[in-house]
């Protein structure tokens, strides 16, 4: 999957889950500061990512993910390791 494809999938999850407008979804969007999200929202989001991409994201790794760009890179890197 290309980074753009991963970005598109994550973008649609964010739009749906956090009711964010399409043009606000950028690589710099920060889940912890730019969205009205608490720790429960974040765990739900991480688990949806795991379901969508079939990769396990450890709690330690999840704590380091703050922006869409970081999640895209994370999924991209772990997908390459898996192949």
């Amino acid at each position, binding site marked *: 999957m290309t980074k753009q494809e991963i970005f598109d999938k994550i973008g649609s999850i964010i739009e749906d889950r956090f009711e964010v407008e399409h043009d606000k979804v950028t690589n710099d969007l920060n889940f912890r500061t730019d969205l009205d999200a608490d720790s429960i929202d974040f*765990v*739900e989001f991480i*688990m949806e990512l795991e379901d969508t991409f079939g990769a396990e994201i450890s709690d330690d790794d999840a704590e380091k993910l703050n922006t869409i760009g970081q999640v895209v890179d994370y999924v991209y890197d772990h997908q390459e390791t898996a192949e």
Partner: protein
Amino acid sequence: MKIAVDAMGGDNAPEEIVKGIELARDAYPDMEFQLYGPKERIQALVTNEERIEIVHAASVIAMEDEPVRAVRSKKDSSIVLAATAVKEGRADAFFSAGNTGAVLAAGLFIIGRIKGIDRPGLTTTLPVVTGDATGSFTMLDVGANADYKLTNLEQFAVLGNFYGQTVMGIEKPKVGLLNNGTEADKGDKVHRAAFEQLSSMENINFIGNVESRELLNGAADVVVTDGFTGNATLKAIEGTALSMLSLIRSKIMASTKAKMGYVLSRNAFHEVGQVMDYSKHGGAVLLGLKGAVVKTHGSAKAETVRNTMGQIHQIVASGLIAKTVAYFEDAKATTTDAEK
């Protein structure tokens, strides 16, 4: 209907859980059970496998495990596997007597919220004890969320109203907001706003604020509260009841006259015990999720497990979840149309 059972949850698991499930199997011919736990151990306890499937779960989430971390890391645990069965549509309800936090986390993160519901509410049923009353009332949220917003209270009112109608069988349940006084201006900012909001909702029969001292007198059929207050109230009710019983017992034992009086009024004491017996009221339901999630006391014995299955039977048979999903879908469609 199929029920996914965490056979390893609770102080008396798996023995009492399995025994309770067999009682429920005999009582409800349309119920099928999946028991999640170490296969050989569970198999040795089941006396008749009719409508009982044993599904191997290699690990157990212990009472002391940190809930969210345990649910995310112990993928082969009885709680996670049972919740996954509901998520994947292989079961209609998930039942456990185990680690409450883990059951809530599994419900929330694995089964997931109904679209349109921000936070699920932990819902419990308690007895109404006034006079000859043999009824009960339902209260939510009793501890799924420590923090809350106005929208959560609104949604709890809707969820509780559905529960009152479909599971408790009350046509127009009296919905009350738990507050520190009955007047409209009582409470913090959110509770004052919630009073206004619930008053304007045409689809619920809102009767205003209710005080905790009136709950057991049947002030409302559905009591709406935030999780912090609800949990504190529930524990105060349970604690007061137990303390009163202990005080009465100690006073009876302290004198011969009182003991003689007890002998004469023993039946009345027995009836009080029957009314207050929480095992008859089943378990706490996590409302607002895409499947039925029911948690019973950790100390549950077979009879409580059986009674909780009766409650789950009612929840599933009434179509509560599907009705709730449809309501919030309609509400969203109406909001979207209004925005256009």
